[in-house]
């Protein structure tokens, strides 16, 4: 990876919850941004630019909200850039911010993703009826369930793998004070018996609707060297996109996903991701996407990802490749922030600052986001040492 070495200097998150009615959108983003600055031990004046991302403006009904958020984010008179790549936006936003440091345009950049889902209803915002078309009114789950069915048929995965992922991520969330869902009494049986929403996706296998924001402060090599607390060094960054519908598209294992993974691991000099990555924060809004992405990203052989779920390899307790120690998207989903949370949690793990869901001895971590019809991808590898 060329260019300026880039470090994550600070991370800030809000508590994720179904309704942050106590704050405006400005108050919400301010909370995360301020915590990231505190973590980085920097002031507003030391930030050169802000890169902000969120899912469609339609989700809150505020068009180009970044303009009014300039006051709250301390960037009046500074460059501000808005990124929009659907559900992967939190990851893409972090990568755009990183590119501004890598290219030496800026020395320190604040990057932030947010969503305030309580101000609308995102599931149905994605399913507006169109003239002369049959509306399936299915939401995101309806879009992804046939793809999951295809994966199950191809791989021969047992029916309850998705429930195992969901139960694991909800248990992981209990150790993350920022997670939206803290279901201490949840049992595996309760996950299995939860209502079938979009066969094979049960209620407990879906992500919640959350309010929340996540921010990071990224800096150049000198800023990383000057930090008093541990920083996470960026070892690789990659983005890829493809159309969501074309003849021969592999919807289960999209080419853009495979190429993005090959690029990011190549930059980081990683040949065997399962052996060389210590912890993974992966975008899994519906449980079955964990085994599907494990395969697509090269952590498992094709059609074998579900075996890693079944044998507990991805569990924080006893697994050799813990996945979503934070509880993941299945436990908190402020859409525009969800990708950035994956990237930020990966950074916290290599900094040794993930609190009760810290994995011992993490040297390299992987952050991942996807969006749209599993067609936009953003990934990074961070490490405790300089690349």
């Amino acid at each position: 990876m060329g260019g300026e070495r880039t470090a994550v200097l600070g991370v800030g998150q809000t508590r994720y919850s179904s309704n942050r009615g106590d704050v405006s959108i400005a108050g919400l983003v301010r909370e995360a941004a301020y915590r990231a600055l505190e973590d980085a031990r920097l002031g507003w004046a030391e930030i050169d630019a802000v890169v902000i991302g969120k899912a469609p403006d339609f989700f809150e009904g505020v068009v180009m909200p970044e303009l009014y958020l300039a006051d709250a984010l301390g960037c009046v008179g500074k460059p501000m850039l808005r990124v929009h790549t659907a559900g992967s936006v939190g990851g893409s936003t972090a990568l755009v911010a990183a590119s501004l440091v890598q290219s030496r345009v800026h020395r320190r950049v604040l990057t932030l993703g947010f969503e305030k889902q309580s101000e609308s209803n995102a599931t149905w915002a994605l399913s507006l009826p169109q003239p002369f078309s049959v509306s399936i009114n299915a939401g995101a789950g309806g879009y992804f369930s046939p793809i999951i069915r295809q994966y199950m048929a191809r791989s021969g995965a047992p029916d309850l793998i998705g429930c195992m992922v969901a139960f694991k991520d909800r248990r992981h969330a209990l150790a993350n004070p920022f997670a939206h869902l803290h279901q201490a009494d949840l049992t595996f049986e309760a996950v299995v018996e939860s209502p079938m929403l979009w066969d094979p996706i049960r209620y407990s296998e879906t992500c919640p609707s959350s309010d929340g924001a996540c921010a990071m402060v990224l800096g150049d090599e000198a800023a990383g060297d000057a930090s008093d607390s541990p920083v996470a060094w960026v070892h690789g960054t990659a983005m890829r996109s493809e159309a969501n519908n074309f003849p021969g598209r592999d919807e289960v294992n999209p080419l853009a996903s495979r190429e993005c993974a090959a690029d990011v691991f190549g930059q980081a000099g990683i040949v065997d991701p399962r052996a060389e990555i210590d912890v993974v924060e992966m975008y899994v809004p519906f449980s079955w996407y964990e085994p599907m992405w494990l395969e697509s990203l090269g952590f498992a052989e094709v059609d074998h990802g579900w075996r890693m779920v079944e044998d507990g390899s991805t569990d924080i307790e006893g697994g050799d490749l813990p996945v979503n120690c934070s509880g993941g998207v299945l436990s908190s989903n402020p859409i525009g922030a969800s990708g950035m949370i994956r990237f930020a949690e990966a950074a916290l793990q290599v900094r040794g600052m993930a609190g009760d869901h810290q994995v011992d001895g993490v040297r390299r971590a992987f952050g991942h986001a996807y969006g749209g019809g599993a067609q936009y991808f953003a990934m990074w590898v961070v490490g405790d040492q300089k690349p």
Partner: protein
Amino acid sequence: MAESELLRADLVVEYPFTRSTGPVVGAFLTGLREGILLGIQRRDGTVLVPPTEYDPVTSEPLTEMVEVGQAGVVETWTWVDPPRPQSPWEVPHALAMIRLDGADTAMLHGVLVDSPTEMTTGMRVRAVWADQRVGHIADLDGFRPEAS
């Protein structure tokens, strides 16, 4: 193809939103319901109306709400004729930037006069309140020239 053969369909996109206004804008709107106008004081003592949560120059959080006057000065204005369908006013009117007494910034609202000949920059206007108030900017019917 004849015009009558073209397929047509209406697409009405309707979508509800809920707005969480937060402690500052929320207080301003609650003030409107109570028939008072609130601004917010910056560290240098200047007062912003309508109030903002964060200082527009320094980005400091602002918390000192202050009541301002119900009359003020028209800093600039434009004449609206005819009003668009979404306008809160059905008859021609002025839209004006009004700096209320005690405020250092101007607020956009309507001035309810019959003709642009009744408008001048620098004129004084006074708030006219709606009878039924709910905590919305339309709790102010508008402003009228202050009796001289």
